[in-house]
């Protein structure tokens, strides 16, 4: 009986997360993290932003981005602690904690994004 390892599945999540975050994050960081705060461009009005987030497609893409990016982070973080900082004796604890954080973060993301249509008030 061959023992099945989760590693290939985790690597696939890491890989997908890497592609999705690589594709979507640069423009998002540039606009939401730099250009708008610095005033290079106008921020979307509350109505516009709420409208954008209410679209099912937006929320789906955001969910995929958050979940996959979190698993990308978890996999990379865990391996870097092992290979980079040579923290080998805590290997299992680190692995469980990393993926655990990713799971919790994904749940939070799903919860928040699910609430958007009914939650946006003050319009």
């Amino acid at each position, binding site marked *: 009986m061959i023992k099945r390892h989760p590693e290939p599945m985790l690597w696939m999540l890491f890989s997908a997360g890497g592609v999705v975050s690589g594709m979507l*994050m*640069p423009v998002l960081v540039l606009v939401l993290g730099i250009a708008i705060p610095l005033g290079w461009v106008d921020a979307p009005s509350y109505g516009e932003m709420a409208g954008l987030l209410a679209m099912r497609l937006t929320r789906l893409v955001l969910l995929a981005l958050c979940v996959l990016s979190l698993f990308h982070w978890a996999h990379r973080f865990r391996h870097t602690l092992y290979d980079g900082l040579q923290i080998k004796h805590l290997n299992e604890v680190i692995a469980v904690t990393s993926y655990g954080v990713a799971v919790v973060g994904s749940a939070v993301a799903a919860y928040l994004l699910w609430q958007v249509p009914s939650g946006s008030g003050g319009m």
Partner: protein
Amino acid sequence: MSVHTEYHHRWLRQPASTYWWLKKPVYFAFILREGSCMFVGWFVVYLLLLVRAVLEGEGAYRQFLLWSATPGVLVVNVVTFGFVVYHAVTFFQAAPQALVVHVGRRRVPARLVLAGHYVAWLATSIVIGWLLLGGTA
């Protein structure tokens, strides 16, 4: 690895220093790549904070915008931008090795796989930029 016999010598393995990655530029670049994941994780948090702000109403949204302009957050996001771009470029660079596509019996050249990633990157960036800045009103 440590089994040795009369006919097989014990291998000499020096324990790796915790700072092995500072010893060569290529090692350092590797750790930088891996370290980029921290900023990917940070930006997920940032995005979810934005979503939560929108959920809480216009006041919270304004608060978020003000907070995002504070020097500390701004510096972190500028650094994040650098790392996220570095991550994208290096990840796409590795993609042709992982993504082996065959059309019929022929393999799609690595250059095309790479170019495909950059085209997709450009296209999605334009769409997202337009959605955020052009407005959908």
